[in-house]
């Protein structure tokens, strides 16, 4: 075994580029390790399933140029969600020199089930027992040498977020081996494995492992099978599986996993020792419990919301925005820019384009840097704190029942909350959901009703000038619309809701550096997405203004905007831009309100319409990419008329009932 492993490694080192694959259960620290090895930042969080895509990073490890590949966490290499499939596929199709299995030391049992599967696959790998500190503080001790002996591979211990044990890991990855361990199944299963192996093509992983995947009923393997085998062979494969399954009551997948579990337990019994040294952090333990308690959970949620509001809404959207917009941009940057442009470019057209009312500098940059950036930045800091503390999964427990109404379950809370930061980013994260139905539902609800932080900032600014009742009407309408649309869409969209089975990680004290690095990465991502769109949007506005198209559009949309929604004609301008980015549209409304052109009812109506718009062009592209162009177009075709419809109804109700706001 050993010889085979190293010669394998030799062959691939020829290419001069070493390839390391990180694999493991969700939330065991793969991304943290990836960051350490490559110095490249990826989202590290205390929420299972944050990594939904494969990430590649370059590094020079042990003086060898290396590609490190980070993968979404898996509970089994027989995938049950899209992100798990990504990981399995990379093992299937991408030959790595070293696979590093990252395991949570205190949860080794589940890690070992993956170890056994890697061992079946015959890939050269090493096992990294990460989060050793947490295990120790809970009195869990793993006999590393004995484990290494039993598995026949290198085993190292690390605490990735503290860089501890990294040298040993680097040494370990020089000696990857195939594990000598083998799980024996029932004679009938073993027989079927033999029969299947004779039919299967050569692959990156052993035929035995492939055969077991097929027996376990891995439907996601279908594509690969059809690409690599002829139809009549596949039919034969199917027959073998069916014949074997008919011998058992339980699904083969379950039986196979059961056997692996048993083996894992046998190994664990030999390497695990428990010491009475407390149960981890008592405060974290109790806080974790209270935060999902039916009674205490709610006040905790309200406190969290209040703190987040104070931080993002008051400090970020208020103080920071004021400082940047009025101070930095209003007093210094914009006046300077105007002077410089007027001095350097004596062409009125260009001057107006850069520093006029719809100027790229005075409008687009001011808006994106002075208003959006601080709000988004503050939101992402708050979100990262929530995420790393492990509070979000507990929030999922709290809202599970409400989400059920919308055909979803608590798991959808992560994309929904992230949507409050950036809907585009959140749409990408819908991959952590298990069924297509749920992914479509969340994508729709994000596009429809979840305002992103940039928009929220502007909205909060607008609403601040209104009564509490106005805020309640706006928020209430939004929530009612989401519940209603979710409820109805869940009935229409075919498919099954998935089970709510969510792992709750322990509450942890967030690492400051991780929070900062993560926030910077997210803000960068955001600016890269948003700023070009701001500039494009402003440019379109400017041109439309110049050629008089704006006035034309206003005239065209007057029946809807003026008669139906009861808004001033100029609000059309905001809506046009709202097609591009809804926060930008909201900012347009903000301007109108500041000029005193909107009464309170008009503000609430126009805000509601704007909030229900598709977030931005980028979000639309992401919808198309993730859900397909057809689905995305259907959604858009529904959302825009629907948004106007809700606004019209609201206008009518508020006016008829003569509500004073």
């Amino acid at each position, binding site marked *: 075994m050993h010889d085979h492993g190293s010669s394998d490694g030799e062959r691939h080192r020829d290419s001069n580029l070493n390839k390391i694959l990180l694999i493991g259960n969700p939330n065991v620290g793969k991304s943290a390790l990836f960051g350490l090895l490559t110095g490249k930042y990826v989202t590290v969080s205390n929420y299972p399933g944050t990594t939904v895509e494969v990430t590649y990073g370059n590094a020079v490890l042990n003086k060898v140029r290396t590609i490190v590949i980070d993968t979404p966490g898996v509970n089994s290499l027989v995938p049950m969600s899209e992100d798990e499939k990504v990981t399995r596929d990379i093992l299937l199709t991408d030959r790595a020199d070293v696979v590093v299995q990252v395991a949570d030391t205190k949860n080794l049992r589940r890690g070992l089930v993956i170890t056994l599967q890697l061992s079946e696959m015959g890939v050269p790998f090493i096992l990294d027992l990460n989060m050793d500190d947490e295990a120790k503080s809970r009195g869990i001790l793993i006999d590393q040498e004995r484990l290494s002996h039993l598995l026949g591979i290198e085993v190292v211990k690390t605490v990735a977020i503290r860089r501890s044990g990294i040298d040993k890991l680097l040494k370990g990855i020089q000696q990857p081996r195939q594990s000598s361990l083998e799980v024996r199944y029932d004679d009938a299963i073993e027989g079927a494995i033999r029969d299947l192996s004779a039919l299967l093509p050569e692959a990156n992983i052993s035929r035995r492992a492939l055969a077991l995947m097929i027996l376990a009923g891995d439907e996601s393997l279908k594509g690969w099978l059809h690409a690599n085998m002829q139809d009549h062979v596949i039919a034969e494969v199917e027959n073998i599986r069916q014949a074997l399954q008919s011998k058992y009551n339980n699904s083969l997948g379950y039986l196979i*996993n059961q056997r692996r579990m048993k083996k894992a337990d046998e190994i664990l019994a030999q390497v695990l020792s428990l010491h009475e040294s407390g149960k981890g952090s008592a405060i974290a333990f109790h806080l974790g419990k209270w935060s999902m308690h039916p009674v205490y959970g709610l006040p905790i949620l309200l406190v969290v919301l209040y703190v987040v509001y104070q931080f993002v809404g008051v400090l970020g959207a208020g103080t920071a925005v004021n400082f940047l917009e009025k101070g930095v941009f209003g007093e210094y940057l914009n006046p300077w820019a105007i002077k410089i442009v007027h001095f350097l470019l004596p062409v009125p057209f260009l001057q107006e384009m850069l520093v006029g009312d719809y100027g790229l500098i005075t409008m687009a940059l001011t808006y994106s840097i002075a208003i959006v950036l601080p709000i988004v930045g503050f939101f992402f800091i708050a979100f990262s704190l929530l995420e790393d503390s492990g509070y979000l999964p507990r929030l999922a427990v709290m809202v599970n029942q409400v989400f059920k109404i919308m055909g979803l379950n*608590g798991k959808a809370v992560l994309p929904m909350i992230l949507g409050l930061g950036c809907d585009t980013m959140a749409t990408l994260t819908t991959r952590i959901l298990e069924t297509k139905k749920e992914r479509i539902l969340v994508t729709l609800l994000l596009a429809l009703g979840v305002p992103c932080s940039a928009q929220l900032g502007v909205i909060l600014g607008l609403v601040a000038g209104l009564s509490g009742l106005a805020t309640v009407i706006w928020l209430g309408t939004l929530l009612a619309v989401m519940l209603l649309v979710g409820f109805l869409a869940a009935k229409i969209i075919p498919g099954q809701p998935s089970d709510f*089975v969510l792992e709750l990680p322990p509450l942890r004290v967030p690492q400051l550096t991780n929070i900062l690095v993560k926030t910077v990465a997210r803000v960068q991502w955001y600016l890269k997405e948003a700023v070009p769109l701001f500039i494009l949007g402003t440019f379109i506005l400017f041109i439309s203004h110049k050629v008089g198209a704006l006035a034309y559009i206003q005239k065209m949309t007057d029946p809807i905007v003026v008669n139906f929604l009861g808004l001033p004609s100029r609000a059309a301008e905001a809506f046009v831009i709202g097609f591009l980015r809804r926060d930008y549209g909201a900012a347009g409304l903000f301007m109108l309100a500041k000029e005193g052109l909107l009464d309170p009812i008009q503000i609430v109506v126009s805000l509601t319409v704007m909030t229900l718009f598709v977030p931005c062009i980028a979000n639309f592209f992401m919808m198309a990419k993730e859900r397909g162009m057809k689905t995305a177009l259907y959604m858009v075709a529904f959302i825009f008329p629907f948004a106007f419809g809700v606004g019209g109804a609201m206008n009518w109700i508020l006016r008829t009932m003569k509500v004073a706001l």
Partner: protein
Amino acid sequence: MSEHKRLDAVEGKAGHPALCVLPEIEKEDELLEIMWTLREEGKLTHDEVLQSCSMEGCEAILKDLSKSGWIHVKGQAIELLPKGEKRARELVRRHRLSLRLFYDLFALDGAEAEACKFEHILSPEVTDSVCTLLGHPPNSPDGKPIPRGDCCAMFRQEMKPLVAPLADLMPGEQAKIVFITPGSHSRLDRLSAMGVVPGSIVKLHQKRPSYVIQLGETTIAVDKDITKEIFVKKV
């Protein structure tokens, strides 16, 4: 008669279910049961027994029972002798437990007919297991009392079934998973990937707003529906 018995034996081996004609010993059983039931109703007399008996040759069997010391017959009065009393009690217990089993657990129509067959097959150990599984029920579905067995005595303090759905645990309680009856294969696979398998020790943390369970160092939130399908035994 001997012809019948041989035929039955052969059929039994081949695995055929119900016998059309009751063998002699089962006829005795039937009669003992009838007597037990009549006694409960307070009308155990010789004539009543013959009236309630739908089988052939009841009178002869009654005589046989009397001869072999199961019962004592004196005119109209019939008395169950100690060994007859024990046999009848066990029979009735098996019959009524079987009724419960088919009625409650399998929600079967025609539970009565099935129970009649079942009562003759159950061994004492299996009877106690069934009784325990059902939580030592005091009555059969028709409201008649189920004679207590040894297993019930041990649990007289606490009439909780030994094996119950995880959903029935109280928050804070620990139990061992005995079996899982999942709604779908994928659900079972998902649970097992997280370590929710028979043999694992599980602790229920809370029931609302969602169920939270812990296995080893893994804490998992799950739907209530799922916890109804996980059967556990308290430890």
